[in-house]
């Protein structure tokens, strides 16, 4: 069951619904008969970074993927409960999953640029979605937002695969930004990167949150601590605690959270 300790509610002290982009209400996710996520409810605040942490296999990625219906591609995955996004349930019958993914972007664990030029990596998504403005501008703007423009502006037409891992990951972020998504989902976006690249991307996320809402899954508690505003701690499919990040790392409300963040688990 999800747990909202009083202290959290007190601190938030705002009309959630106005500040929330996505609301999860009693979300259950199954793989065939196995339940991977149990009755999770929380809200994702606009222009904030929300981190999801928890031990391996606790359902972080499963939950994240449910937020833009990437679970549709997993055989046997089934989502129950409500995920409210702009007054609609993401899993409503009428809802077009392709449109959902356009509006809720995603960046993955391993940088996965298309084996095309940097330019095409960015312009492809908008183009297939009917973009007919100036792609040059779009590419420049997205790369600037992703703090990559200076490094690549002279080789936009070279293969994206020539970039370093950290640059590739920023390219993937730029690619997602080019779609102007409302929410950006990230599943361990730095775990394949060295610390310098990681620091760059963390700085970038910090910049981006003024215009985007970001949800990030991370194994790296320090990272969650460093960059997020809110943290959800999950264990075995349950949401144990959802709280302001500072709280989670200085005085979590739940004993299990404390045990996890201090490294006393298992």
């Amino acid at each position: 069951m999800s747990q909202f300790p009083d202290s959290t509610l007190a601190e938030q002290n705002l009309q959630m619904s106005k500040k929330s982009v996505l609301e999860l209400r009693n979300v259950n996710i199954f793989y065939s008969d196995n339940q991977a996520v149990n009755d999770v409810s929380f809200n994702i605040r606009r222009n904030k970074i929300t981190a999801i942490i928890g031990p391996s296999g606790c359902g972080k990625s499963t939950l994240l993927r449910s937020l833009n219906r990437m679970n549709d591609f997993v055989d046997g995955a089934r989502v129950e409960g409500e995920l409210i996004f702009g007054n609609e349930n993401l899993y409503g019958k009428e809802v077009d999953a392709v449109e959902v993914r356009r509006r809720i972007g995603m960046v993955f664990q391993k940088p996965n640029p298309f084996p095309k030029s940097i330019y095409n990596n960015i312009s492809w998504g908008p183009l297939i979605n009917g973009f007919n403005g100036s792609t040059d501008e779009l590419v420049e703007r997205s790369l600037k937002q992703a703090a990559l423009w200076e490094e690549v502006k002279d080789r936009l037409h070279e293969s994206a695969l020539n970039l370093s891992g950290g640059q590739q990951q920023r390219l993937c972020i730029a690619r997602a930004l080019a779609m102007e998504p409302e929410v950006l989902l990230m599943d361990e976006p730095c775990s394949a990167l060295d610390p310098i690249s990681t620091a760059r991307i963390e700085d970038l996320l910090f910049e981006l949150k003024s215009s985007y809402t970001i949800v990030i899954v991370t194994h790296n508690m320090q990272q969650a601590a460093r960059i997020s505003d809110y943290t959800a701690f999950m264990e075995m499919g349950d949401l144990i605690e959802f709280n302001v990040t500072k709280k989670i790392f200085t005085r979590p409300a739940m004993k299990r959270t404390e045990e996890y963040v201090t490294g006393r688990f298992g």
Partner: protein
Amino acid sequence: MSLHLQRDLEKLKKEILKLGTMVESAINNAIFALNNREMSYVDEVLRLEDHINEMEVKIEEDCLKILALHQPVAGDLRFIVVSLKVNNDLERMGDFAKNIAKRARELMQEEPISTLPEFVNELPNLVRTMVRNSLDALVKLDVGLAREVIAMDDKVDEINRAMYQEVTRVAKENPSKTEIAISLLSTSRYMERIGDLSTNIAEDVIFMVEGRVIRHDD
């Protein structure tokens, strides 16, 4: 969790306790020296104070090491921060014990004057109890005990105020005793400060357990 961190935290805890024991014994010795005019106890306090200083530096370095090497969070982090502060407080208690011992040495040279019985018996007992209880609360993470310590502080303050009245009275009546009176007042103040520091420790324990800062709550 990392065994390494666990081990280091255990070690730190032990060191803090050891420091606490040293400080307690310095205070006891100082008070004994004061009440019983025992020079050897003064020396013992001065010797202890040196060790306390060394210990304090070591503990601070260890805290720094743990912070740098293990980057603890939540409860562990609070424990380290509290340790840093308790460490500081204990060292200052040591300082005060030294000061009391010094005053005791001065007073030994003079004729004793009669003073408040609370000062001779109750105050030292109170302070010793506070010190011991605050350390106990730290070890056992016993919030109740910590609150008791905090409550005791009022009594200490009261005795200290009474001492001030008494001492000024003595000095006025017998100006030749002014130095002794002031020295006695100082020892009383030192004990009151030790009580305050015990209160600090108790407050830190509450902070550590409950995560709430209460020291300016009153």
